[in-house]
C-alpha cells in the first residue's frame, strides 16, 4: 500500500502577513496542512513500513543493533533533563554531576584517564581524536602529515583523518585478516601522526599483536587511536588503555544501547591518556569543592559542536551503564561473542577468518551478497552488512549482539541458509514480501529527485 506524501494529502499556499516591513519578508509559504488525526495516521503508517530492533533480529555487522531499554527513554524525557546550554554552572549541578559520572564510567571501561562527551557521533569522535593528536604533535613542535589506516577500517577513519588535513596511508591486511607487522613497519615513519585501529577489527578478529603494534607506533612517535565501533566485544575483558592505545572514541549508540534513530543521533565521547587530557575540547567537567565545574583544558583543541554534544543521548547511555553495572556489561560482551560464534556455527555460508568475537564476516561465495541480503528480508529478518570489508569476497558481516536468544539465532540461521539455497533468479527478484520491492538505486542517483518539489517539476 503506497502512502502518499504529506504534500499530496493537502497543501496550502499561504500569504505571509507580518508586522515586519515587506522588504524583510517572503511573500508566501506553501506547506502541507493537515490536522493531527491525519498526521497521526500518516506517521503510524510510515512506521509500519520500517524495520526496527523490536521488529526482529537485526544482525548488522559493525553497527551493534542491541535492544534499547525502554526506561532510558523515560529518563531522557524528564523535564529536568532539558535545560538550556547557556545555563550557569551553579544552576545545573545535577546535570554536571551526571556528565562527570559518565566521564568516569567511560574512562574506567576504556582504561583511559579522561573522557570528553562533546563529539556528537562516532565520526565526530574520530575527528576530535585526530585534532587532539595534531595538537599534541604541534605542542611538541612535531610536524607530522600522515595517518595510517588499515584497509578493513571504517570509511569514517579515512575521512576524519583527511578532514583534519592528514594524508591517509592505507595499510593492507595480512593473510590472517589482521594487521601485518611488516606492512605496518613499512607504513610507519616519523611522518606518522597516528595509527587508527579497530580492535577487534571489522572481521571480528582481535589484533593479537596489539602490544607490538603499540610499541611500533610509539617508537616512531605516533599515537595509537582506538575506534570504538567494536567495543561491545571487549567489555570487562580488555581495555584499549591497557593495550597501549593513547586515545579512543566510544559509540554509545552501539555499545551502550542508545537507539540508532534511523541514522542518529548518536554520541562519540573520546577518551585519552593523562598526557593528552590537556588537549580535550572545551568545556570539560570536573569536581570542584562540593560540586562540579566546567573548565577549559589548558591546550584545548576548542570545540567540535556548538554546545556539548547530544546530551539526551549521553543521558540514556549513562542510564544503561548504571543499570547493567560492570557485571552486566561484562556479561553483555560474553553473550555477544557467544551469540556470534553460535550463529556462525549454524549457518552454511563459509566464514573464512577466525577466531572472531562479537561479529564475523561470512562469504556469500558465488552469490551476490547484496542479493542474498535482499532475499533474507523475505525470510522476515534484517540482513547483515554486505560487501564490506573487501578483504572477504561478497562479505556478509554479521553481528547478532547479545540480545538474541538461542531460538532466535536458530531462526536467523535458517533465514541465512534458506537464502543460500535459493537460485540466482530468486535472489535477484528478492525481496517479494516487503513493503517495497527491490528499489532501483542507480536511477535514483542518475536522476536525483530530492524533494516533492522535484517530483512536481516532472
Amino acid at each position: 500500500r503506497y502512502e502518499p506524501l504529506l504534500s499530496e494529502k493537502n497543501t496550502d499556499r499561504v500569504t505571509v502577513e507580518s508586522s515586519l516591513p515587506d522588504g524583510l519578508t517572503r511573500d508566501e509559504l506553501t506547506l502541507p496542512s493537515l490536522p493531527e488525526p491525519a498526521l497521526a495516521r500518516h506517521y503510524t503508517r510510515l512506521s509500519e513500513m520500517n524495520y526496527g530492533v523490536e521488529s526482529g533480529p537485526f544482525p548488522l555487522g559493525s553497527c551493534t543493533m542491541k535492544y534499547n531499554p525502554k526506561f532510558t527513554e523515560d529518563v531522557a524525557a524528564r523535564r529536568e533533563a532539558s535545560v538550556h546550554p547557556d545555563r550557569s554552572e551553579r544552576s545545573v549541578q545535577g546535570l554536571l554531576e551526571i556528565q562527570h559520572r559518565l566521564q568516569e564510567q567511560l574512562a574506567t571501561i576504556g582504561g583511559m584517564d579522561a573522557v570528553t562527551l562533546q563529539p556528537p557521533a562516532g565520526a565526530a569522535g574520530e575527528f576530535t581524536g585526530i585534532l587532539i593528536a595534531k595538537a599534541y604533535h604541534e605542542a611538541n613542535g612535531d610536524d607530522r602529515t600522515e595517518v595510517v589506516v588499515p584497509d578493513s577500517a571504517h570509511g569514517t577513519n579515512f575521512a576524519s583523518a583527511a578532514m583534519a588535513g592528514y594524508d591517509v596511508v592505507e595499510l593492507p591486511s595480512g593473510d590472517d585478516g589482521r594487521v601485518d607487522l611488516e606492512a605496518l613497519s613499512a607504513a610507519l615513519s616519523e611522518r606518522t601522526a597516528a595509527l587508527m585501529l579497530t580492535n577487534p577489527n571489522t572481521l571480528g578478529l582481535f589484533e593479537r599483536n596489539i602490544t607490538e603494534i603499540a610499541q611500533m607506533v610509539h617508537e616512531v612517535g605516533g599515537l595509537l587511536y582506538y575506534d570504538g565501533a567494536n567495543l561491545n566485544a571487549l567489555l570487562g575483558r580488555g581495555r584499549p588503555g591497557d593495550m597501549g592505545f593513547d586515545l579512543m572514541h566510544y559509540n554509545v549508540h552501539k555499545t551502550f544501547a542508545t537507539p540508532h534513530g534511523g541514522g542518529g543521533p548518536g554520541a562519540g565521547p573520546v577518551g585519552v591518556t593523562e598526557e593528552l587530557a590537556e588537549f580535550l575540547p572545551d568545556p570539560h567537567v570536573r569536581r570542584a569543592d562540593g560540586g562540579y565545574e566546567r573548565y577549559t583544558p589548558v591546550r584545548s583543541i576548542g570545540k567540535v559542536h556548538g554546545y556539548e554534544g547530544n546530551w539526551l543521548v549521553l543521558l540514556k547511555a549513562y542510564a544503561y551503564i548504571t543499570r547493567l553495572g560492570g557485571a552486566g556489561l561484562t556479561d553483555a560482551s560474553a553473550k555477544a561473542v557467544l551469540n556470534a560464534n553460535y550463529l556462525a556455527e549454524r549457518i552454511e555460508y563459509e566464514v573464512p577468518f577466525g577466531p572472531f568475537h562479537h561479529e564475523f564476516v561470512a562469504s556469500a561465495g558465488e552469490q551476490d551478497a547484496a542479493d542474498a541480503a535482499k532475499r533474507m528480508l523475505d525470510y522476515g529478518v534484517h540482513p547483515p552488512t554486505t560487501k564490506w570489508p573487501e578483504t572477504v569476497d561478497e562479505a556478509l558481516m554479521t553481528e547478532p549482539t547479545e540480545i538474541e536468544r538461542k531460538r532466535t539465532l536458530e531462526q536467523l540461521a535458517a533465514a541465512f541458509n534458506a537464502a543460500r539455497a535459493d537460485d540466482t533468479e530468486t535472489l535477484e527478484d528478492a525481496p517479494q514480501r516487503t513493503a517495497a520491492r527491490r528499489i532501483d538505486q542507480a536511477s535514483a542517483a542518475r536522476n536525483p529527485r530530492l524533494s516533492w518539489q522535484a517530483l512536481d517539476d516532472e
Partner: protein
Amino acid sequence: MTANGSPYASHTDAETEAMLSAIGAESEAELFDIPESVRFDESLGIEQRGEQAVRSLIDRTLERNDDLIEFLGRGHYDHYVPSMVDQLSSRSEFLTSYTQYQPEVAQGFLQALFEYQSMLVELTGLPVANCSMYDAATALGEAATLAIRVRAVDGDRVLVPERLQEGRRRTLESYLVGHDVGIETYPMADGIADVEALSERMGEETLLVYAETPTVRGTIEERLDAIGDLAADSGALFVVGSDPVALSVLERPADVGADVAIGEAATLGLPAAYGMGTGLFACREEFLRQVPGRLVGASEDASGRRAYTLTLQTREQHIRRERATSNICTNQAWVALRTAMHLAWLGPDGLIDLAEDCVTRPKELAARIDDIRGIGAPVHDRHHFREFVARTDQPAAAVAADLERDGYAVHVLDEHEIQICTTETNEDAIDGFLEALREAAR
C-alpha cells in the same frame, strides 16, 4: 539470566551450555582471543542497579539542577513541542531502526526524511537539502569545507560576523584546522552587518561570507541581498544562517543570493536539551555532488511504485573514504524526523503565527522592560526575533545573579548588557520576571 548478568541478554544456563557445546567451547571466556598480557579482570567497579533504582537515582540527581525559568536563546531556542511529536517519533520502528541501507524495509523513515528535505527546500528556496548535520555549528563548518572544495583555487579566507555564537565560531575553526584557510570577521552596525565595512573586507581571497538572520543578538538582518551581491561579485560562497521558524516569514535565502543555508533545525522538534540540535543544510543545485551528509531521493521499486532510497552515496565516507565530502556517518536523522513532524503539526498557518509571535513578543517585552528604572531595551533599534539585548545601569552579572536567585535565567553579554529571549514557553512567567528584574535592575 546469569546472576548479575545483562538483563537484556538473559540466556538461561541451559541455553548457554548448549550453545557452548555446539561451538565446542568450554566457557565463554575461552571465546575471547585476547593475549593474557592485555586481558582485563572484569573489575569495572560499577554497581548493577534495578530499573527503578536507576530512574530514581537520575531523578534525584537532576533535581539538583535549579528550577529556573529560562529567558535564554542566542542560537538555541525552546519552543513548545506538541505531544504528537514525542509519541509518534517514539514508535520503535522509527526510534530503533538503522540508517536506511536496506530501503525495502525502511520506506517509512526514508519517506519522512524526504518530506523533511522537501519542507526545508520550501523554507530556504534552495533545491537541495540534506537530511541532517549534527547542529548549526557543524553545518557551518561543513559549509566552509564545501566552499573550499568548490572555490579551492580562489581563496583562503572565510568572513563571519564579529558577533557570532561562540560554539559556531569555534567549531568552524576546528573544521578549518586541516586547511590553509583563515577566519576573519566583519563588523556589525547597531546589531546588523555593517555592509560597507564588509565590502571593504571582501576580496578575491574570500572563500565564503556568512551572515545570519536572526543574528545571535536577536536582530533581523536587513541587508542580506546586499551581502549576497558582494559575495556574488567576488565569487565567494554566500552562506546564510537561520532556523525553520524564522524562515517561514523572513526572506528566503535563495532570494537573497545564498548558495548555502545552514542553521538550527531542531528549534522545532526538540526541547532545550542542553544544546542538542540538528544542523539544517541546504544549497544550490550545482553543489549537489559536493553536499555533505545523507540525501534521500525518490525512485521506483521493481513493481514500478514510487519508493525512496538514500542516494548519491558516492559522496560519502563509506564509499569514497578520504575523498568523501564529509566524514559524517551517524547524523541526527531521528531529530530531523521530529522536526518534520513538528513542522507538519504546525502547518503553514501555525508556523507563520508562531513566527509572528517571535516578532511581537520581544517587541512587547522590550517595551515593558524599557519602562523599568535602571534598564534600557532594546539596545539595538532593529526588528527582533524572539530576543533582544538590554542595557543595565547595574553590572550585568549582578543583575543576572539576582534574577537567578529569584528563579530566572538570562544571558550576560558584557559589563552592562544582558540578553533576554521570550517564546511561548516562558510567556506565562513574564510578570514575575519583570517583577524580579525591577528589583534587580535598580
